[in-house]
């Protein structure tokens, strides 16, 4: 399946965010088009993670608005974002440590559960059927990410690389239209990075999922993303396709510390 990059699906306008007196983001605007892979890069403390947190409503910006499929939001909240089809992974893996891999991914199906508490308590027809149907869906994601062998392992016991993959799996189980990835390759070795790149490209390619990712590995970012936003000290200093960004003097100075 080939998904052409389409219209703007997510548009951020003049977003500013501060914690007390500390400004994390200052007047940032950028857009994300449907089916594209959009990268956010920048040095440590540039406000990249804050940016993702604003998009899916974990942080509330003081100014600016988010336009999602033409709908204006002054502030998101995580539940609304999830309902609107935004899912994400976390920089410091936020898996549910007390559950196994299947259950972690089943939580991703939560919004699609229709049966109520009473039906679930009695393992009543609809609840049971639903549970099994979602299990089948989750198994598809497990197959896609090639983690069949660990499906019943408690996530706390998994090595770091696999935990990252399960984190991605849980986000995928939501069948999102927009997927936010917060440093999906941090702390991985070369092979794991290659696997992760393959998964990201496959997700984008097979399901047409729009992807917004934060990454430090420049080679990876320049290879897989369609467009790149560059942040520094909470301000936007570059935006465009990888080649444009690479050529921008401001970006070079931010990364290499060249003075002008």
């Amino acid at each position, binding site marked *: 399946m080939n998904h052409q990059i389409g219209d703007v699906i997510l548009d951020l306008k003049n977003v500013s965010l501060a*914690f007390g007196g500390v400004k994390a983001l200052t007047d940032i605007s950028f857009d994300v088009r449907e089916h594209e892979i959009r990268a956010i890069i920048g040095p440590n403390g540039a406000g990249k*993670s804050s940016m993702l*947190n604003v998009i899916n409503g*974990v942080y509330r910006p003081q100014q600016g608005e988010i336009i999602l499929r033409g709908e204006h939001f002054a502030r998101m909240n995580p539940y609304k974002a999830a309902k609107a089809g935004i899912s994400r992974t*976390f*920089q*410091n893996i*936020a898996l549910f440590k007390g559950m196994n891999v299947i259950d972690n991914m089943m939580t991703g199906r939560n919004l699609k559960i229709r049966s109520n508490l009473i039906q679930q308590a009695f393992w009543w027809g609809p609840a049971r059927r639903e549970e099994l149907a979602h299990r089948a869906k989750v198994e598809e994601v497990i197959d896609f990410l090639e983690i069949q062998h660990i499906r019943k392992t408690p996530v706390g016991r998994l090595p770091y690389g696999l935990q990252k993959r399960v984190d991605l799996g849980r986000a995928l189980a939501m069948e999102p239209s927009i997927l936010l990835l917060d440093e999906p390759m941090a702390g991985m070795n070369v092979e794991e990075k290659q696997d992760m790149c393959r998964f990201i490209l496959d997700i984008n390619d097979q399901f047409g999922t729009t992807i917004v990712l934060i990454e430090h590995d420049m080679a990876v970012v320049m290879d897989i993303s369609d467009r790149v936003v560059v942040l520094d000290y909470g301000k936007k200093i570059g935006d465009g396709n990888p080649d444009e960004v690479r050529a921008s003097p401001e970006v070079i100075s931010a990364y290499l510390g060249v003075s002008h």
Partner: protein
Amino acid sequence: MGFFLETLIGGLMAGMLYSLVALGFVLIYKASGVFNFAQGSMVLFAALAMARFAEWLPHWLGLDSLWLANTIAFVIAGALMFVVAWLIERLVLRYLVNQEGATLLMATLGIAYVLEGIGTSLFGNNIYSIDVGMPKEPVFILDGLFEGGLLINKEDFIAALIAALLVGLLALFFQKTTTGRALRAVADDHQAAQSIGIPLNRIWVIIWFVAGLVALVAGVIWGSKLGVQFSLVTVALRGLPVVILGGLTSIPGAIIGGLIIGVGEKLSEVYLGPMIGGGIEIWFAYQLALVFLLFRPQGLFGEKIIDRV
């Protein structure tokens, strides 16, 4: 007006004692992240030791000075609190580092049972009195300002002074001594403190000992007022809303929280109690703390928690 002020002052005096108990909670929570349910049992244990030694010593040594007997008993009780602190660290805390809050809380409940059991086995479980020579007679003050003046218990007044003095001493200890600085470092970050060579285990012994001394002072004041008996363990339950109100990690919070709760309890009992049946002191403090929490989840002076993802 005079009656209102009397109630208010009575509340402040009671609040001072709550502050002392709350102070014990806060000290231990700051330094070891343990919510110490055994604080009440420590108060009981210390007060029992104090009362019984003050009673026994004159017989054993033939002392006839009340003052001397009290002093020696106080020192012995203090030494016992050190032993308790050392044993708790040695037998319990060092094995439970990095456990979850709930587990630690349960452990202190276990410690509470053990302390109560040992305390009553050693010292008996009747009602004992502590007589440290506090004046019992009430005094009238400010009779120029109000008709009839204000009726205050001298004993309460002295107790409040002692409590204030203790808090002052603790503040000095924390700010001015090397140990105090180490304690503050541990309170901020266990691992960082350990990595620069602060011996965590010794710090814990010290902080539990200090909390034990605070418990002893609270026990003596309380005991000389109302007698030492098993029900003293429930003062821990009276101190809890105080820490919630003031914030688990704040010493000034414990003091001010104690005063607020003390005053709130007395005023509510006097003015609200008759309307709805009386005996509302205990739950009123909790409801007050609860309502307060809804607006400021980290307590008056607690540190604000910011979620990071």
